[in-house]
């Protein structure tokens, strides 16, 4: 019997956001990436348009991080000693874009300086032609000290500057506004907080097609269901026409995963947890795939094997089935 395919009708769409700028556009990137634009829920190709695939950002650090699991450091090898080499390795591993995280301390153990942060950013820009996101350590005063000179030194590159939060967004947004960059707006797993921050950022005059929102998630087993449902609710609201939720979403699946005991700890854990490396990668992949299903436009990952697996999953999810 012929069954009519049930299609939901949506009035809204996610904004398109382009990250990076080529030489012709005032930057130096070899390519740019565009996310958003969807007029339906994730991967519902049969009822709407999904013009851009979700992207994988790979997180690198301005110097070899001493708080990362050795599983990650072993996987990246010597590349992790140097942000430029790491960026190249990330590109080879299949990154669509790079997230450079700035550590609070420099390689010499002293606090990071604006000069060294700018130098690391420039080194990454020179080493890889991929679009870039730069995330400061997450401490208001320090973040501003680092991000303003970075924004100025890379004017026109359309970098995503992070992290704009309710307590600290003005300086970062102003720096993005003045230097043709974007911002990542992070709020704590709450639809209304996310909307509110987007409104505040919009009120400063930054066009919303230069904002990605990070609604925050927990890793698998550590609150993923909150992030998952907040993302579904934000995306549903966006499609129903709520302008302040119509931003593409970024989630730091790698960061959250590699905080968990399941990923971090190899000894003295229950036998039922199985092989450590395989478990850690599973944890990152399951977290990332579940969040893609709930609406992520950028997933930030850490392990090279996770990148390959999540990329394969995105390929399958974006393969538009033949009509019929």
């Amino acid at each position, binding site marked *: 019997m012929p*069954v009519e395919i049930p299609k939901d009708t949506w009035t809204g769409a996610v904004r398109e956001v382009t990250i990076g700028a080529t030489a012709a556009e005032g930057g130096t990137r070899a390519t740019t990436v565009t996310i958003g634009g969807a007029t339906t829920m994730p991967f*519902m190709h049969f009822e709407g348009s999904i013009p851009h695939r979700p992207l994988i950002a790979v997180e690198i650090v301005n110097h070899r991080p001493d708080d990362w699991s050795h599983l990650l450091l072993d996987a990246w090898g010597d590349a992790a000693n140097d942000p430029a080499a790491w960026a190249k390795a990330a590109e080879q591993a299949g990154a669509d874009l790079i997230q450079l995280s700035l550590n609070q301390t420099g390689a010499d153990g002293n606090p990071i300086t604006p000069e060294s942060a700018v130098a690391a950013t420039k080194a990454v820009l020179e080493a890889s032609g991929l679009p870039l996101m730069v995330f400061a350590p997450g401490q208001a005063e320090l973040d501003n000290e680092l991000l303003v000179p970075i924004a100025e030194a890379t004017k026109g590159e359309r970098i995503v500057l992070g992290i704009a939060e309710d307590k600290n967004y003005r300086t970062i947004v102003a720096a993005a506004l003045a230097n043709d960059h974007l911002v990542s707006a992070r709020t704590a797993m709450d639809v209304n907080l996310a909307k509110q921050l987007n409104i505040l950022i919009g009120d400063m005059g930054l066009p919303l097609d230069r904002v990605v929102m990070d609604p925050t998630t927990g890793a698998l087993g*550590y609150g993923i269901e909150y992030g998952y*449902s907040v993302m579904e609710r934000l995306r549903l609201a966006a499609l129903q026409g709520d302008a302040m939720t119509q931003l593409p979403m970024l989630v730091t699946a790698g960061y959250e995963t590699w*905080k968990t005991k399941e990923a971090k700890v190899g000894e003295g854990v229950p036998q039922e947890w199985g092989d450590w490396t*395989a478990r850690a990668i599973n944890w990152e992949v*399951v977290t990332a795939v*579940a969040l893609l*299903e709930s609406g992520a436009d950028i997933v930030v990952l850490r392990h090279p094997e996770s990148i390959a697996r999540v990329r394969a999953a995105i390929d399958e999810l974006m393969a538009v089935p033949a009509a019929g």
Partner: protein
Amino acid sequence: MALTGIQIYKLLPQTNCKDCGFPTCLAFAMKLAAKQVELSSCPHVSEEAQAQLAESAAPPIRLVTLKANGHEVKAGNETVMFRHEKTFYHKTGLFVRVRDDEGPDAIKARVAPADAYAVNYVGMDLTLDGFAIESTSNDPAQFEAAIAAVRSASQRPIILISRDPAVMAAGLKALDGESPLIYGADAANWEAMAALAGQHSAPLAVIGATLDDLADLTQKIQGAGVEDMVLHPVATTLGASLALNTQIRRLALKKNFRPLGYPLIAFAGNDPVGETIAATQAIAKYAGFVVLDHFAPETVYSLLVLRENIYTDPQKPIQVQPGVYEINNPKPEDPVMVTTNFSITYFSVANEIEGAGLPGWLLVTDAEGMSVLTAWAAGKFDAERIAKAVKQFSIADKVSKKRIVLPGHVAVLSGELEEELPDWEVRVGPREAVDLPAFMKQAL
């Protein structure tokens, strides 16, 4: 079309006899309207009313139960597309497949550890639900031998896989008295399979690549008297599978489309990497049963936890048991820190301390499952409650130094807590868990 609770109530006996298990006919009617119970729970309803209510009363996705030896796995009776709209009710059943050409010894060796597997997650023991046994030999005797091998190692529910009715008949006979899932019926064999399902009162999986094919088959099979069915929408990619599962769920829930109002089964595939990803999607997006080809603890653990997370009721925060948690084998001189029993709060704090390798005593107070600030605002995390927990769990007997660290967000409680606990030193810690290790190293 669907009736409202009041409309249904008018058709019920209105005697409030409680035989249905609900206190009043109105309460039962409301449950019927919400499609959470079946009309058959009321023994007194008239035949006339029954006919009127039948259409309205059945849940839009039929509840199907696999049974064996006291174990049950249920799927169906779901009411929403997104978990935040209410909740997902019946956790996806996870099954591991064996094939009869592996031979009885190999089968037993694979089934035994999977059957015994139980992993603790926030105080719950999570396990697999059963096994799928496939006849690849197409030989009834070999199928029976494989079933016997599985049954020698596990008493959990079974999914029998063969398209050949003669082989399936042998399998069902070997599992007499159980309700295994028969997999399955296709356009070629549905009549014989439906007859077997009827004889053994076992649910029948229906296989089809399109909604049209599936709906055709379920109607024919229902015409043959079989009510309990499970759908397998066959798809070759994650995207196609997601689309089919979503369409079927929508048709059932939003259109009350009976021919597709059944739970779904998914086969996660045969390579271990792709299998994890396919199972992730299937758990999140509507499968009632998932069949895995491999049993590896590191994979099964992640999938069981995902299932737990997705099927958690969003209206009820997950709580941990209040009490004293020992982190990194603390000694009497190590610090005492206090937090609430909201699971995410507990995990954030415990993880930071544990990850930093610092020993400590974590006192988890009963804040009714709320986070620190929320609980404080609601009056569920105050000096009185903290002092009560200190006494109730006799933390003073475990430590040599009576010093307690409050979360920075509730620094305002320190004065009151000093009054409640006069012989304790009260310290204010950082606001965020992530800053706790540094605080412990520097300030304690």
